[in-house]
Each structure stands twice: as structure tokens, then as C-alpha cells.
């Protein structure tokens, strides 16, 4: 666990300049689409992950990681654990955006927690598809995969708003006053964890036997 923390810390060293770019990102969003603030919680987290992964394969840097006194499975685990702080950063930034919307009078609604958390929860799902590709391809082909995932996120953002217009029931479902179906949430939760675990196992299987 200690090594995972050091590896996540290393990733933050690598993306620290990129994190500064989030400030103008959220300012622009604040001016243009503050009413749809929750859907913009996904992109920063995914971009931080893409950036951290890209930095790791850039200049033989996976060899550096392998040279450290850390087993390979911990290198994989740390990448999955790093999703937590990235998601938290996105959540905090989105809440700050909401707060500024409230203070400036542009938002009068209470925080759409369910919508916001569902958007944040989409991040690990996307990462569950992205990380096995990252461990498999390494430097080769990652630019194409990164581009494809950014497009996917952009599509996800527009698709969510289109879906909400086409299926008003979806809006009802994510509305805070709608009663929760515990069984539905439980099945969804188990499927979610299962997906992440399968992704981790696939990444592990790829990376543990890979020549770097």
C-alpha cells in the first residue's frame, strides 16, 4: 500500500502542470455552461489519467518503474488506485464551480448529487476500458487510443444531454426526489465493482508478463 501511495505521488509530480490547466478549463465552463456543471465532472479526471499514463510511457519510463523495488502487480494496482484522487479532484472542482454559480446567481437549484455522482462514477468505467489498453500498447498506439477516449468523453457529454431530452424518465430517475430502488442500486454496484476488478485482472495479466 505504501508503494502505491508513492506511485500515485509520482503521478501527481508528473501531471502537476497539467492540473493548473484545469483552472482555465473550469473558468470557461463556468462562463458558458454553468447550468450543466455536473456533466463536466468527467473530462478533467479522464484527462489527468490520460496525461499521467502518457508521461509514464514517454521516454523508457516504464523501465524506470520496473527498476524500482516494487512488484509489477503493485504498479498496476497503483494506476487503478490513482482513479480515486483524480475523481475526487474532479468532484471538488465541480462543486466549486457549482458554488461559484450559486454565488453569482446563475444557479438556484440544489446540488444534483445523484447526477453528479453518476457522472463521476462514469470515469472509472471508462478507465476500466482504457487501462488494459494502456498496459497492452505502451508507447505504441497510445496516441490513437488517447484521441479515441477523448472523443468518447466528448460524445458522452453531448449524449447525456440528448438522452435527457429524449427520455425525460431518465431525468426523473436521476432527480434527487425519486425514490431509490435498493435492489437496482445493489445490482448496479456489484456489476460496477465486477467490471473494475475484471479490468484490473486483465491489466495485471498483460503487464506482469510483458517485456518492457
Amino acid at each position: 500500500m505504501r508503494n502505491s501511495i508513492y506511485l500515485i505521488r509520482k503521478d501527481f509530480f508528473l501531471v502537476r502542470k497539467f492540473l493548473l490547466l484545469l483552472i482555465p478549463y473550469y473558468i470557461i465552463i463556468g462562463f458558458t455552461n454553468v447550468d450543466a456543471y455536473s456533466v463536466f465532472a468527467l473530462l478533467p479526471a479522464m484527462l489527468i489519467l490520460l496525461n499521467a499514463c502518457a508521461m509514464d510511457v514517454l521516454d523508457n519510463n516504464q523501465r524506470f518503474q520496473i527498476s524500482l523495488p516494487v512488484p509489477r502487480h503493485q504498479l498496476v494496482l497503483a494506476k487503478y488506485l490513482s482513479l480515486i484522487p483524480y475523481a475526487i479532484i474532479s468532484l471538488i472542482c465541480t462543486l466549486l464551480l457549482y458554488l461559484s454559480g450559486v454565488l453569482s446567481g446563475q444557479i438556484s437549484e440544489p446540488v444534483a448529487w445523484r447526477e453528479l455522482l453518476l457522472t463521476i462514477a462514469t470515469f472509472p468505467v471508462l478507465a476500466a476500458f482504457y487501462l488494459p489498453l494502456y498496459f497492452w500498447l505502451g508507447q505504441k498506439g497510445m496516441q490513437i487510443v488517447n484521441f479515441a477516449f477523448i472523443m468518447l468523453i466528448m460524445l458522452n457529454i453531448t449524449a447525456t444531454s440528448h438522452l435527457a431530452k429524449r427520455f425525460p424518465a431518465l431525468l426523473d430517475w436521476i432527480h434527487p426526489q425519486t425514490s431509490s430502488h435498493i435492489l437496482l442500486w445493489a445490482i448496479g454496484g456489484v456489476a460496477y465493482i465486477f467490471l473494475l476488478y475484471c479490468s484490473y485482472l486483465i491489466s495485471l495479466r498483460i503487464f506482469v508478463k510483458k517485456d518492457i
Partner: protein
Amino acid sequence: MSEVIQLEGLSKSYDRFELRDITVGIKEGYITGLIGPNGAGKTSLIQMIMGMVYPDQGEIQLFGQNHLLHQAAIKDRIGYVSDENIYYERLTVNQMKRIIAPFYSRWNEDIYQKYQERFKLPQDKKIKDLSKGMKIKFSLAIALSHDADLLIMDEPTSGLDPIFRRELLELLSEHIQDEKKSILFSTHNTMDLDRIADYIVFINDGRLVFNEMKESLTEKYLLVKGGRELLDRDVRRWFIGIRETAVGFEGLIGNRAEGERYFKDTAICEIPTLEEIMYFTVKGSEAHA
């Protein structure tokens, strides 16, 4: 005498190259030079020892432990200097050090500071802005700052100026004063090893040629220089490799006693340097290929 690295029947196939059945032991408490021409398989072998590349066959043991089962504990005791930069180019020297230090259980900040001053490493300079020599110095400072029992260095002297090159060799000699420390040092510049190595492992074209004490090589090999009239078909067979010119020949014999007996009155017999042993072995293997 215990072995700090044991390689048993290592084989690995690449598209255009193959390491074949390498079995070798690296002795604890000594400097072992890994020599061979470019493309002989030195870096591949080191990458296998470091767990970066997996062998198709064979087993690797470090400090008597399987290198896959005890990766973390083993690497905690290894200082690794790569032939190419493996650090994050966009980070500064100080940031990179701060990333690395917490991973090692025996990291000593005072020792790092000592080497940083000795090598004049600029703390706030980005890795990408360092010269190749400076990058090697940084790798070396890192490798020496966590009390590594085994230093594995892949072509560490390439790109170094002659002054630091000598300083590095002295540094390695100092490091080895503690009899528990060992060094595996790959190079194709054999002059470095003539100065400091105790053992020489020679690989050529993916095969182990020999693993010998450096002193015993001078007892085993003989360099013969003479006129071409001395070379007939039977005599040629004694030579590992021969270089012929218009006026004469130079050749390496693997059985010194026999060579001296035959050539002492008719040719010049000399003790070959490591470079000559390497040159004639490679030349001989090309001729027989």
C-alpha cells in the same frame, strides 16, 4: 565463494537475435565486466536480470532468491545504471530524486547530497537538459545512495569525459572495498575493465564465450605475430581468430602453453589485452559462421 547472480540456461528469441543457453554466475564481492561487441546481447542479459525482459527459458537467481518471486526485496538491494535515460525528462533532478528516495528502505540522504556535490549535479535543472555524462552521474548518485549490495551498470562509461571516466572507476574500486558489495559492469570499452575488473564474462552473438578471472585470461590466451609462411592448414586450426596482412599475421591462441611451445622461436608471442581477446574471438566466430 557465493554468487550474487546465478543465470541458469537463459534463452530468449527476438526477431533477428537470440540469446542461447547462458549459464553464468557472478561472484559476490568482485567487479565483473560483461563484455562483447555491439549487439552481442549484453543489454538484453542485464534487462533480464533487472526483470524488464522475461527469458523464454531458464532461471535467474539474485542473492540466492528467484528474481520473480522476490522482486521488491531484490531490487531494494540493487543499484541500476542504464545505458539510456530512464528517468522522466520533464522533471528536475531534485524532483526525480524526491520520487525515487521513498521507495528504498536504505536510502541515505546525506550520501546523496555528498554525491550531488561531488558530481556537481544541478538540482533545479530538468533531466532533459542534462548532458549524457550528467545523466549517468545522476543515475550513479541514485544507485550509490541506497546502500546497494549489487550495482548493475549497462555501459556506464559511454558518453563520459576521460576525467570523470577515471573518477568513476576509482569510485567503483572504493565501493567494492566492502567485500559484500558486487558490481556487474557491461561495456565494449575493455580498457575500463583492464583497470578494475576481477572477473570477465564475455558474450558474443548471444552465446557465452567465457566467464573467467581476468588474471587467468593472461595465462590462457596467447597473441602470436609472425610471417604468413608459418600458417598452414593445421596451424590455422589452433587459432581462435587470425588477422592477416600482406607481410604477416596476428592471431589469438586459446592454449597458451601449446602456442608458446610451437611459436616461441619463430614468432613474437605476447600477452593479449582484453580488447584483442574480444576482437579475435569475434573475428574467428565470423569466419566460422
